[in-house]
């Protein structure tokens, strides 16, 4: 734990006082206050809908608060738009990076202020040298003339950091920077962040992951329901304190609790049946997935694990008909099946929870009810005419059953939190009475409380006789499955039974890479 005594006496860099913000009559922030010392790493934690993202938007100037004050280095700030915040030295690095993929690294770092020679011609040499310098501060050495799109996610993130530093960032807001990073890169990112803090940059770190908070940060502010739920020093608190503050009640006995204490993972499945539901042999799609064979038993929860980009997500897509196989075959109920499109798979009782919710999961402007019944409209209609009353009644039941946080079943889906959106997509397949649920990274971008809910819902589904495939790059998640297939470079490299995995999942991880 890194409570640096020097920082105790450091001056206050960022201070928020009683921030208020309402959207469409919903009070998202009810007076949030925050104080961060210069050169410290401060975490911001909270469930979906707690107000984290609203707060981030306000600090970065993307939203204007209804009340309250922001001080930077003791000076009162008034941000009208993101550029105001950036001029003041507050830079935000979002989950979706904001680089221009086709431009070079150097051009991205200098975007909007290319250095010029004689007032007209771009000074490429100075630019390249400065860009290399900025990258060196974050410990990377890249060919700055190459296009950003040719680099890995971790390298692109480094470019984004370098860009912020180049613009003299005093405060860096990092919104779940590790959510798309492979494990080894996470450690490297943390080293960079620590060294930035030592150089006097103040970091506000937003994450759902307790292990990250406790290995990186100095202090944490927990938000709940638009208010401060706790301000804790990392050195003097435990992960369970943070989680308890987040959910507002004791976690004892929950899955998250077990995971936090490093205990043997609880099982999501109720154990497999005897009947083979799906039998896959030599399945493949070009180089992305090859030679995958396995039997899936009825009632089983099968995990497909591996580092991001190992092919588990593509395999999930193949099994759900979202992608086309190039070789191999799939047998369902002892019959050969070919999925030309998702429709074919859905007709046979297969439902997919896609990894990228925003791009693939839901209709943003459509209401919650419409999104829930999207795959089962014929059930709610006669002669193609939708029975709205029946649809609304069903949607209300689903909202209650899955504990979705919505103000109305007609609320546009895009306005909901990630966890609630994910539940909405799950509800779509429950409405369709799917018997095989394929979940691709089901809890990505979902906070602890909603994550717990998701696991609970998957358990319920399996207990009721449903079969589940979970494709996940999170080890704790894979360890909850009845059986885990580990993938690397598009192939299945190992298979583990739930009971044969050690409590820390080392056996699993050793097969990664």
């Amino acid at each position, binding site marked *: 734990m890194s409570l640096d005594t020097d920082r105790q006496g450091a001056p206050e860099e960022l201070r928020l006082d009683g921030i208020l913000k309402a959207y469409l009559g919903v009070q998202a922030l009810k007076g949030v206050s925050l104080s961060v010392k210069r050169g410290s790493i401060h975490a911001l934690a909270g469930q979906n809908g707690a107000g984290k993202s609203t707060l981030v938007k306000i600090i970065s100037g993307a939203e204007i*608060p209804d009340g309250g004050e922001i001080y930077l280095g003791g000076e009162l700030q008034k941000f009208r738009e993101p550029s105001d915040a950036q001029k003041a030295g507050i830079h935000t690095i979002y989950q979706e990076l904001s680089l221009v993929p086709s431009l070079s690294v150097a051009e991205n770092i200098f975007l909007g202020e290319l250095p010029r020679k004689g007032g007209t011609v771009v000074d490429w040499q100075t630019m390249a040298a400065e860009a290399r310098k900025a990258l060196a501060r974050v410990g990377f050495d890249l060919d700055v003339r190459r296009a950003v799109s040719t680099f890995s996610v971790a390298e692109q993130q480094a470019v984004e950091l370098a860009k912020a530093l180049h613009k003299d960032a005093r405060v860096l807001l990092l919104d779940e920077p590790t959510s798309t990073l492979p494990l080894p890169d996470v450690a490297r990112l943390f080293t960079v962040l620590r060294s930035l803090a030592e150089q006097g940059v103040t970091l506000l770190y937003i994450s759902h992951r307790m292990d990250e908070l406790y290995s990186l940060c100095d202090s944490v502010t927990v938000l709940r329901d638009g208010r401060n739920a706790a301000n804790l020093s990392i050195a003097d608190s435990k992960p369970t304190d943070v989680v308890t503050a987040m959910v507002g009640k004791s976690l004892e006995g929950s899955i998250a609790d077990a995971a936090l204490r490093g205990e043997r993972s609880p099982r999501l499945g109720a154990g497999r049946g005897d009947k083979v539901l799906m039998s896959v042999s030599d399945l493949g799609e070009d180089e992305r997935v090859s030679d995958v064979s396995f039997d899936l038993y009825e009632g089983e929860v099968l995990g497909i694990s591996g580092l991001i980009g190992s092919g588990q997500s593509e395999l999930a897509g193949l099994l759900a008909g979202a992608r086309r196989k190039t070789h191999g075959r799939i047998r369902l109920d002892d019959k050969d099946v070919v999925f030309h499109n998702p*429709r074919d798979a859905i007709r046979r009782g297969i439902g*997919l929870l896609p990894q990228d919710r925003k791009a693939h999961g839901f209709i943003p402007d459509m209401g919650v009810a419409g999104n829930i019944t999207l795959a089962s409209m014929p059930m709610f209609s006669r002669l193609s*005419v939708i029975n709205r009353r029946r649809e609304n009644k069903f949607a209300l039941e689903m909202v209650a059953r899955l504990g979705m946080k919505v103000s109305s079943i007609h609320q546009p889906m895009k306005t909901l939190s990630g966890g609630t959106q994910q539940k909405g997509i799950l509800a779509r397949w429950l409405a369709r009475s799917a018997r095989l649920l394929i979940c691709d990274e089901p809890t990505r971008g979902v906070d602890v409380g909603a994550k717990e809910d998701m696991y609970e819902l998957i358990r319920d589904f399996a207990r009721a006789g449903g079969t589940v495939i979970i494709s996940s790059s999170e080890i704790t998640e894979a360890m909850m499955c009845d059986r885990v297939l580990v993938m690397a470079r598009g192939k299945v490299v190992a298979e583990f039974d739930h009971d044969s995995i050690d409590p820390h999942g080392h056996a699993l991880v050793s097969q990664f890479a």
Partner: protein
Amino acid sequence: MSQNTFTAAPPLTELPPTPTPTNRARLASATKRLLPKSYLILVLVAIIIIGYYVSEDFLTIRNAENVIAAASIVAVLAVGQFFVILTGGIDLSVGSTMAMSTVIIALTLQTGMNAGASAAFTLACCAFAGLINGALVVWLRIPPFIATLAMMSAIKGFSYIIQSTSLIQIFDKNFITAFSSGSALFVQNPVLIFVIVAVVAALVAKFTTFGRSLYAIGGNPEAARLSGLPVARNVLITYTVSGLLAGLAGLIAAAQLQQGSSLIGVGYELDAIAAVVVGGASLMGGRGDPISAVIGVFVLATIINIMNLVGISSEPQLLIKGAVIIIAVFLSSAGGVQRITNFFGSRFGRGTASARV
């Protein structure tokens, strides 16, 4: 850790189990849904009031009939266009299809075929042209703008070729009565036609699985596909319907002008698109409704009519029409009202001292 522990664990949400919407929330959401449409009607009323003051001839039955007769053609086109735009597409070929419709109906009537059969044959041809549009978009994956631009040219060329003379007169009384001069219940037939088309379209859009799937396809095509909706089939249908309605608009035009000519309908596709957009639909797809599109037609038609009455020549009319489209779209779909409110709110007080940080 036994499994029973988990069954006992309550779901970690703090909301009451059944979040039934409160009356206030229901009212708020109803207002929000109705607002775009009521705003459009207000604009239309404002334009009518202006018309009343600037021209004595404006609020007369004769003039109203003129406006509606002219608007009914574009209104029918706009409804078809709306469905295409709802899916995130665009149909530039409707003006040409409309011209083709007038040529085909004139030719078939010339052969002595009866009016009903001729009309049915013409509509089938136009629907087929729409189907080709859809096939180009769905199967050949040609972007809608390009596919229908090419079809706009191809259909026009086809009409020229089959027309062979400069224009073909229509003498069939039954046909002219049915699509232009006739009336039922004191309502002119063209008006009746577009009202029926608009109402059916509104019902389809709002209450059917087909309509719902179009909103889904336009809102997020990939999510629609992954939910098992027949995306390709439904997109194909919307282009076919757009072709069919362009054919219907062509029948009205042919009956009103009593002739068929490939020169009819030039620029009508743009009028239809403008009306749909003025009606609050997004060219990205997934938003809007057919009635608003029809109101959009009347907003534009009324403005043109007033300008005609006060004697503004056609060149400045085009200029003003362009400006009106931009203002209307800014206000209705680009969030203009919100931005103007914010602008004035931030300039001139109204509790902003504490609202600004």
